[in-house]
Structures are given as structure tokens and as C-alpha cells.
């Protein structure tokens, strides 16, 4: 018993050492992933932000075709950087819906006039509740939704040009 106790601290330290060493070689992923990935979309029923487009309802996503759900704000700078890629995805035949976080119709109208309009629908989320339900922790984020209304992937941050092919591939695979 005593012999075991004597060596216990060294063994304990070796365990901690191994743990810390493994933490060092595999740097932690600091992004906050949504727990909703792999699950059906939460129940959303967002009013249209603009008179010209419908709002967002969960039922619209279970119609057989995979779609993108983009979480954005007219006040968000990386959303501007991402706009050309969203337009490219739209040209490739992808349907993109959006949720505008804490925004106003005028500001979004101006944003779309300046940066192009890739969206089929825009839901209004004035308090950020829908964003939290999605498990999104910032803007922009883009969720890939399959034809049954299930979230299959989450893209955190702006979509770069090099991300576009992978997104198209995933949407294709979800068909």
C-alpha cells in the first residue's frame, strides 16, 4: 500500500503531463460549434423584414431541396466581404435564405443595394432569439440545411472564395 502511495504522485504527474502535451500538439478549436448540427431546424417563424420577400418558417425547409440559411446583419463588416461568394452560390443555383439579426428594413435595403442581393427570403430577428435557437454565436454564419429540414453543417465566419466548392459539394451530397 505504502509503496503504491509513494509512486502515486509521479504517476499522476505523468498523466497530467501527457494530457497537457497532447493539448499542446493539438491546439484547441476556439470556435463555438452549434449543438444543432445534425438535428432538425428548431421551430422558426420569423416575420418578413422586407415587404418584397417572405419571412422564414421551418416548414419551408422540408421541401426536398437543400438550402443555405445565412445569419447576417447589415451592420456586420465580414458580411460585406462574404457577399460576392453568396452571389456566386446563387448563380450556381443554390437557394439562400437569411436571418437578419437586430436590423432595420432601411439598413438591410441599403446593404443589399450596395452589395448585391442573394436572398430568396429574409426573416426578421430583432432580438437575436432565432440566432440563439440555431446555436449561432456570431455573424456571419451559414447553415446547410438538407431537403428534410435537417441542419447538416455550420460554416462559421465569412464564406471565402475557396470555401465555395466545398459548400456546393456538400449541398450536392445532401440531395
Amino acid at each position, binding site marked *: 500500500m505504502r509503496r503504491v502511495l509513494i509512486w502515486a504522485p*509521479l504517476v499522476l504527474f505523468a498523466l497530467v503531463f501527457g494530457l497537457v502535451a497532447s493539448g499542446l500538439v493539438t491546439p484547441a478549436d476556439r470556435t*463555438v460549434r452549434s449543438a444543432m448540427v445534425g438535428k432538425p431546424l428548431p421551430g422558426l417563424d420569423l416575420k418578413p423584414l422586407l415587404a418584397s420577400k417572405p419571412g422564414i418558417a421551418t416548414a419551408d425547409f422540408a421541401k426536398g431541396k437543400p438550402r443555405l440559411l445565412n445569419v447576417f446583419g447589415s451592420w456586420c463588416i465580414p458580411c460585406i466581404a462574404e457577399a460576392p461568394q453568396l452571389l456566386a452560390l446563387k448563380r450556381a443555383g443554390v437557394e439562400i435564405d437569411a436571418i437578419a439579426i437586430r436590423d432595420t428594413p432601411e439598413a438591410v435595403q441599403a446593404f443589399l443595394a450596395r452589395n448585391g442581393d442573394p436572398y430568396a427570403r429574409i426573416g426578421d430577428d430583432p432580438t437575436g432569439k432565432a440566432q440563439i435557437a440555431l446555436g449561432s454565436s456570431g455573424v456571419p454564419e451559414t447553415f446547410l440545411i438538407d431537403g428534410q429540414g435537417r441542419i447538416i453543417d455550420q460554416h462559421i465566419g465569412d464564406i471565402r472564395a475557396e470555401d465555395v466548392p466545398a459548400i456546393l459539394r456538400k449541398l450536392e451530397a445532401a440531395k
Partner: protein
Amino acid sequence: MIAEAGLAALWLATGFALMQVMLALGAARGADGKGASMVMKALRRVAIVQGLLALGAFGLLITLFVQSDMSVLLVIENSHSMKPLIYKIAGAWGNHEGSMLLWVTVLAVSGAGVALFEKRLATATLAATLGAQGAIAIGFYAFLAFASNPFVRVNPPPLDGRGLNPLLQDPGLAFHPPTLYLGYVGLSVAFSFAVGALLMRDVGPAFARAMRPWVLGAWIFLTIGITAGSYWAYYELGWGGWWFWDPVENASLMPWLAATALLHSVSVLATRDGLRAWTVMLAVVAFSMSMIGTFLVRSGILVSVHAFAVDPTRGTFILGLLGLYIGGALALFGARIGTVKQGATFELVSREGALVLNNLLLSVILGVVFIGTLYPLVAAAAGVQLSIGAPFFEKAAVPVGLALVAATACGPLLKWRRDQWRTLLGKLLAPVAVAGVIFAVAFALAGAEHWMALLALGLAAGLAVASVLPLVRRNLRRTPIAIWGMVVAHLGIAVSISGMAADSAFKSERLAAISVGQSVTVGPYRIELVEMRPVVGPNWSALEAHLKATRAGGTPFDLFPQQRFFANPPTNTNEAAIATKFDGQLYAVIGQGDGEGRWQLRLWWKPFVTLIWLGGALIALGGLLALIGRVRRERRDAENDA
């Protein structure tokens, strides 16, 4: 030239540290007699010179910062010629490389201190201790030279530096890291003593007496450093809290917990020759916690608000050093401790028994903090992402802490070796009564919601009474200073815990958006937003709110919270306005405006919150008294020996 001289001093110090290890090996090998005493003399001198060289290198780095020498990379990255002088100086350790140099300097100077002052320890044990201290120093000199050189030059030099992070431009910083490091690294001496004692199989009262003042000294600095750091976070971050269970805070708490346990077990070893193996273990653990803390902070493997420049090579380097020193010491412990004879035994109900209980409870808290801090890493290894915050630590550590408060009340009332339950219970009558009354009154006032905090308040009151009982029926003028130290430190714990409990049970918080002329209430105060105005400082400009606070029947007073904008580097900070009253603090933070004339205002009324830091200061003062008492006693004994 200065930078080159600094680097040269570091390399020379490395050479001397190497020499220190060789001489120690020689002293340990060599038999007694004239040769051994000459080697010992040389060893002492080498250790002292090594300390002076490190101190010199650190002094040269400060000189570079004071002169704003913009050809040195570290100065460029962390200073600016327009900065006030005090922050130029503080900039020298407000970064990774400079603070590591400070770390090593404390290490080397502590070693020099042992060489200079330690007179009574067996020669071979002292030699082994100095050798261990030198060996640790070599590793960290190498770390500085190869992975964190503070003296790197840049060619061509830029026109000016990038400035110091504004959060760090605060008098608190000029003083918080150096104190904390004196504590962290001061514990290296205890570690080296333990290694020396194990190597020479000399674990006994003499070793404990030699180690005790060093542990006490390091512990005092740690206590001051943690207390000051907590207050600094409280007023500088503007979050209204005083402890966030952040990994870096935990990294300072863990060595403190281990050192507190060590402080108590070392007195069992010194006085009664008991707890030999345990004391050696704690001495190793305490400094190991310091090193692990340093590693966790510098490697960036844990997410923390204390940002250091993160660099994987540095992480790997320090991890290697950790494996070498901690692993080595623990292996030595395993190999040698079996040969250390068991010390004196004692009854369960005795001073020793209470100290063992104190050690166990402190170890449990240490374990909780350690697991809570590292658990996110375990989870990450299993592919799960999570963070552990205050709810875990409070649930797991607070009940154990309260049991510890109760044990602290009992310990000093017990006799060494053997005592009676009945005598103890008799002495505890008054403290228990006071604790019960305070708890009942607080419960009647505040209700059941914060019952744990109210219990803490009652226990703290009981501890306050119990802690002065050792002075009862004693001739106060002839009471040893060390006893006074214990009384003051235990009283400090009671005071500090009262503050924590009062803050968590009775604080009120208010978040409001109001325009000029409107007012809100928080706790007993009504606060009016009188005016918003711009102000300028030496290297910042700010938007300042003028608040008028009124308490029923009291004279109104003003508060001026600010939102500061620093240009170099461009950053915003919140300067909270804090008004200290006899029964608490009013804490105000001004937030964003909404563009329509309303301003976000965050207010707290925190009853008796100042007791937290006052208690911390008392604990440190108690430690200081104990240290003075011990050193005087040792000196007297040394004179008697001679």
C-alpha cells in the same frame, strides 16, 4: 550596448549556475574536513554572484525601457516614448520575455539568499539544496536564451513603440506581477530544500526549520499578490466581480493553497518531528504548481482573459522543463522517501490532528481547482468542447472551504500531541454561540436564498472569536510574535470571508439606460446622471459621466466613471468609479450610448466588499509577524549554539 550587456550577463549567470551544480556535486561527494568547507565557501559565493548577474540583467532591461531604446524589439512592442515613467518601468515586466526574466531573477536571487543567510543546516544538505536551485536556474536561463530572449535588437529601429496594453497602465500593475513572482518563485527554495533533504536523506526538524522562513516569505508575497490582483481586476476590468475562476487566477491560487498547507505541515515537522514525507511532498507540489501555472499561462493551451503572446515552441520548451524538474523530484521522492523513517506520532485530537485536517481540506480544494482548471483539456482530448466556470468551483470548493474555516477555528485551541474532546468543546462554546447568533440574524434579514453565504458569514464570525482565544489569559507582552502572527492571519481569514459572504448575499445590481437628468436606484442609493462630458488624460481621451449619488438622509456625492480611448495601441477601456463607504462600495460603470441621448449605466451596491482585501492584507500581515518571530527566534538559537 546595454542590450548586449544584458544578454552577456544572462549567459554569464548560466555559466555560474552550471558551476553551482558542479560544486554542489563536489561538496556532496567530498568527505568532511578542510576541502569540503572550501568547496562550500566557493559554492556560496558562486550562488551569490549568479543572483547578482541575473539582477543585473533585469536592471539593464529596465534601463532599456526607461530610455525608450526603440532598437530593442521588446521595448518597441510594449512601450512608447510618450508613456508616463512608471509605466515605462512596469512595461519591462508587462510582457512574456520581461516577466520570464523577472521570474528567473527571483529564482537566482532566492538562491543567493539561501547561500547568504542559511547558517544552521547540515553542510551536505545545504550544498544539495543550492545545487538543485542552480539546476532549475539553468533550465530557465536556457528558456530565456533560446525561446524568449528579451534583448533582441531590430534594424532599422522604428520611430516609436507600440505602447503598453492600456489595461496594464495602472499603478496596480507596477506592483502586482513582481509580488506574485516573488511568491511563486520564492517557493522554488522550498522545492530545492526538499530535493536537497531527499538526496541527503536528511528529512527532519532542522530541515523544516531552515525551510520555514522561506515558505513564509514566499507565502506572504503570494498572499499580497493575489489580494492585489483581485482588487486590480475588480476596479480595472469594470465587471464588478473580484474573482472569476479564470485559469490564470487559478494558477496563482493553486500554489497559494499548497503553500498554505506546507506552512502548517512544516510547523508540525519543526515542532514535533511529524509528517515528514507529507511535508517533503508538499514542498515539491507547491513549486510544481507555480511552474505548471507559468506553463498554463504562457503556452496558451487554456483560454484566459490574461493574454500572453502564445507560441507553441515556448510551450514545448517549458513543458520539457516541467517534465524534467517535477518528474525528477517526484521520482526522487518515490526512490528515497521509503528510507525516511517515520516521524513522531500523535493522537487524533491534538494540534497535529487539526493541522492534518487543515492539510487534507486544503489539498481537496487544491484538487478541485486543479481538476476544474484542467478539465477543459481532458474534455478536448475526448473531443468535447466545454468551459468550466464559477458555478462548478463554487459548488465544489465552497463547502470544503467552510469546513476548513471550522477546522481553522479549532486548531489553535488544541494542545500538541494529545488533547481531550471535552476541553476543545468547552473552548469552542463562545465561537459556536457567536456563529449561531450571526447566522440566525442574517437568515432572518436575508432569507434562505443565499443560505450558504449566510452560513459562511456565521462561521467567519465564529472564527473571528476563536482566532483571538489563544491570547486569552496570556501575558500579551510576553506572547511570542509568531503567536500574534497566527492570530492576525486567522482573523484575516475571518474578515476576508465575511466580505465575500456579505458581497454574495447582500449585493444589489442595476443595469439601466438613462438620459441626462434621469435617475435610478441601487441598494440604498438614488443615482442621477448629471452630465456627460469629454475629458483628456496624458495618453488617452475619455467620455466621462458625472453621477450624483444620494442616500436617504446623507449628503450627496459625485462619481465619475469613464470610457477611455487610448491611441497607442488603439483600445477602449472602462474606468469604473468606486465610492467606498464604511458599510460597502458603490460601483458605477458607464457603457455605450444609444445615439438618442440615453447611456447605459451599470451599478452595484456591494455591502462590506472591502473586507475581502482588508482580510487579505491582514493575512499577509499575520504572515509577516510570524516570519519576524521565527527569524528572531532562529537568530537567538544560533547565538546560543555558538
